[in-house]
């Protein structure tokens, strides 16, 4: 791969741009915070509302990867889809477990918007769709992170964000759709506006 550094801002295609109907918004202002020493350990009721949205996002991501596998994705791309699906369902379980509810619902609106992009056996098309999803998921969790009150919600979310960023990077490399280091390290992703208003 030929690398380009310090290039102008990317104009690469992004699923985010096609998702206006779903209601993607700018990343939330990282405004609400309380001293870590005063923060509750376990998720508060407000946290739980936001965590439910996060859990549904994770189950949606898992379902999208399963759709890609069902569409015949194979080889390296198929293996990645299987691992990443497992990652996301694990995140959903962990989020739900910490908040005290079941991981049993996904964001249907988001799933329907993205399903056709994922239902492909073409590795490059899959990689681009999935990289965009991972970057969006990381941005969404980052916006939520600033809203959470409890240490547990923050700690879990931070540990998810960094791996979703890694997944996005791997998918970008797999797809080979950009050699611009700005696109790889600082992707133009925005947080989802979830129905709970968490990232708005």
């Amino acid at each position, binding site marked *: 791969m030929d690398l380009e550094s310090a290039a102008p801002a990317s104009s690469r295609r992004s699923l985010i741009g096609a998702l206006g109907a779903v209601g993607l918004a700018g990343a939330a202002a990282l405004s609400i915070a*309380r001293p870590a020493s005063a923060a509750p350990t376990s998720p508060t009721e407000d946290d739980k509302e936001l965590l439910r949205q996060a859990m549904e996002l994770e189950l949606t991501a898992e379902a999208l990867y399963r759709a890609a596998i069902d569409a015949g994705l194979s080889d390296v791309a198929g293996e990645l889809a299987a*691992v990443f699906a497992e990652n996301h369902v694990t995140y959903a379980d962990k989020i739900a477990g910490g908040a005290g509810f079941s991981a049993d619902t996904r964001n249907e609106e988001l799933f329907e918007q993205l399903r056709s992009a994922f239902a492909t056996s073409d590795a490059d098309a899959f990689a681009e769709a999935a990289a965009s999803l991972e970057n969006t998921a990381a941005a969404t969790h980052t916006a939520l992170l600033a809203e959470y009150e409890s240490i547990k919600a923050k700690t879990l979310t931070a*540990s998810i964000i960094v*791996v979703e*960023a890694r997944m996005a990077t791997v998918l970008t490399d797999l797809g080979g759709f950009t050699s611009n280091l700005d696109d790889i390290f600082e992707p133009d992703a925005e947080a989802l506006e979830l129905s709970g208003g968490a990232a708005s």
Partner: protein
Amino acid sequence: MTDNTNATTSSRYGRREALKLGGLTVSVAAIAAACGSDRTGDDAPGRVGFAPPIEELEDYPIDDAVRLRTASSLELTAVAVYEAVLATGLLDGDLTTLVERLIEDHQMVADEMGQLTESVGGVAWECTNPWYMDRTVGPLLAAVLDSDNPLRDIVNTAVVLENIAAATHQSLTIELEDADAAAATIAAATLESRHSAFIVATARGPEGYVSPLIDGDGEAPNDADGVPYKFAINNRFGSTGQVELVAGKPNENGVRQTFLIQTPSLNSWIYNELEPTC
């Protein structure tokens, strides 16, 4: 002869007995003195030999400024390592471009951490982290430069460096009380996670994407020289545990050095009381 025998048996206290009795007397006297109510003087435990006296460690507070100063120090340590790597001349064009970008990013994060340090009332730290430099970076760079495969060791070092930097910021984002600082550190953790993943992807391609140990079982795969492979994704969740790095040439027993690198702790915080080292 008879007289001599009588003389021996009639003496009830010989030299040995006298020494025992004397020792007992001294011991009793010492105990009596120690138990005396008017005892004065130093009551510290006694010391043997000429070891220097133990100095009490200062209990410096760890606040947001300390956390941010430490973050700056790690970023600048990364810059120093990458500059040393560039100076080896071992990197090809793509890797040189990548390392130059890594330097730029780490300097940018260091500057941001410095500004945040001042915004929370501290003094920005503009040096490397002396503890990491002395204990880890110095020996590690020496091992890498003397390695039988320096390019492999440079790549592995870069991956570990990015992993530790990301883990540090991941931890700090929970600990920091300042909202802007917390937001900046999770952004840095994300950026450095991307760095790490991309370095591995560039160096190893698809084989380096996901560790076969991601499910927690199996054996860590090694290269032909027995050095553990690095992966873009090692765990399902971001780890803040210590990172292991094997580097350098093997010794006469075929064993390479193993470096264990951890996120900052009491020894490596850049306390507010610490004077600049550069």
